[in-house]
């Protein structure tokens, strides 16, 4: 069972690890220099041998540290999850140590985080895009990238030439209507994000 003793032992062993407020499973904050040591300890000594998920969060362009990597581990002995938050260095060209030598399952998860956020994982065996095509110039899940997309040429040149098609921004037609948080009715009212174009209004120039 994951109880206070377990948490205390981890916090005592690694000085760079702190506990984070959590509701569902133990969540630790760790810096990116010691995250591999912490994971090695968790995998070998504390039976967290299943890497369940590795993902990233973009905290926004104006945040102090923009990207953080979140790793979820599972232990069959403790029957519980453990979450590790870790901040990536450098907001413009984020990087993070790759954990794929500890957990081979992380290999594709890291490729996906690179594809969607642009986080470079150091010492990754094959850091290529996995979901978008190799030449795609943008990182889609960043907060400054619009949902509709940005115009780029189609990945295959001959098809693009014959059909005159290209990767166009999707017509949002005044949507999506998203409501913000806030106690005021006007703040919480759903409003169109300013990334849409319709037949009457022009495409925004990016």
């Amino acid at each position, binding site marked *: 069972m994951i109880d206070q003793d377990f948490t205390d032992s981890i916090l005592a062993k690694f000085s760079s690890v702190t506990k984070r407020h959590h*509701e*569902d499973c133990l969540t630790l904050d760790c810096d990116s220099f010691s995250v591999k040591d912490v994971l090695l300890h968790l995998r070998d000594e504390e039976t967290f041998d299943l890497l369940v998920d590795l993902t990233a969060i973009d905290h926004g362009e104006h945040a102090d540290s923009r990207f953080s990597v979140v790793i979820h581990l599972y232990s069959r002995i403790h029957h519980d999850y453990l979450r590790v938050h870790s901040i990536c260095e450098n907001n413009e060209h984020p990087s993070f140590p790759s954990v794929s030598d500890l957990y081979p399952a992380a290999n594709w998860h890291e490729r996906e985080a690179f594809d969607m956020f642009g986080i470079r994982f150091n010492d990754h065996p094959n850091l290529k895009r996995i979901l978008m095509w190799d030449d795609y110039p943008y990182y889609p899940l960043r907060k400054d990238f619009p949902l509709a997309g940005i115009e780029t040429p189609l990945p295959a040149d001959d098809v693009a030439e014959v059909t005159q098609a290209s990767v166009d921004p999707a017509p949002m037609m005044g949507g999506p209507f998203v409501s913000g948080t806030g106690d005021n009715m006007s703040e919480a009212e759903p409003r169109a994000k300013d990334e849409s174009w319709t037949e009457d209004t022009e495409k925004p120039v990016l």
Partner: protein
Amino acid sequence: MSTETIEVNVGDAVSRGADATAKAESGKMALNVGPSHPTTHGVLRLMMDLDGDVITRCEPVLGYLHRGDEKIAENMTYNQFVPYTDRLDYLSPLANNVAYAIAVEKLTGLELPERCEAIRVLVCELARVSSHLLGMGVFGMDAGAWTPFMYTFTEREKLYTLFEELTGARFTTSYTRIGGVARDIPDGWLDRVSHFCDNLPKAIDEVEKLLTRNRIFIDRTEGIGQVSQEDAIAYGFTGPNLRASGVDLDLRKDKPYSGYEKYDFDVPIGTRGDCYDRYLVRIEEVRQSLRIIKQVISDFPSGLWYAEDAKKIFAPPKEKILTSMEELIQNFMIVTEGPQIPAGEVYFEAENPKGALGFYIVSKGGGVPYRLKIRAPSFCNLSILEKMVPGHMLSDITVILGSLDFVMGECDR
């Protein structure tokens, strides 16, 4: 090392694979399987090097069905995202709906009534039966047997009729809402489910008669695609694939959700982790699901199908909305702004037919999530292909892919 470049002027498809040929070592042939290929369960591309008939390198290429679900989730309210969860693992949409709803409800701390939980368990197990039936039918088809496919599809049509009566759609049901399910079960539906469960074992027996002790099937699947226990854990396997490799991990037993701890069922574990074991595990899981369904029906609780104290989260029933002012305002707020979910983060995994489907949701309050990550079991299951496939022959590819039973809709999201 000398590289042999053979230029063949046949057409576009070959010249496109030219970069793959250049990378192949001398004497080896580069073969590109997919993305449009009958044996792949969706659009998966495999770039392989062959030495004669034996595969020496296999590189899967994904992303041909990447639709941007996670970005869409940041622009949709929690209830508006439910149809997108249908189309993740589109063979068992009800199970995805339930997993998503429970994940969001963990953020709210809502307590669901027993009837709602029983409905969700029942619906999840029916979805499991549906998914495994298709998986095994198509697996037989991949190995060359057409008839099991027809038999399992006939049973699935009966399931579709049941789903249609309950939710309104054959599949892509969008049945759950945050705080409950969309509507109560109709009268007499439980009897029809019970009747279906009584007839299904005969159909599974027919499929088993055709496949389980079939010499050709066993020759094609035994010893093929073996995944050891250590590899299965290291590569993030979950679900029937993990259990076939001998690891006893079923989230319904390990971390029960939605009332699973009340029901009595066994979890089949394999021994060798080859394709034949994965097939046997899935067939047995269907039988165990029928056991669970019978237990749920025999003791079906009465009550409401939604959480009553979910003021800003679950839309009140229609009669109240049309007659009472407060409920009307509540409904308006929930529909326009979305269910107001408190700030926090949650990770929840459900035992889906394909594996463990996880949702990691970061909420900053309000009706729209800040970040929603879908942990797809098929994405994790496929990463073993690079390690497992080399050493097998070309004709084993179809059997391996069929036995892993993945769905590209959830793999690429």
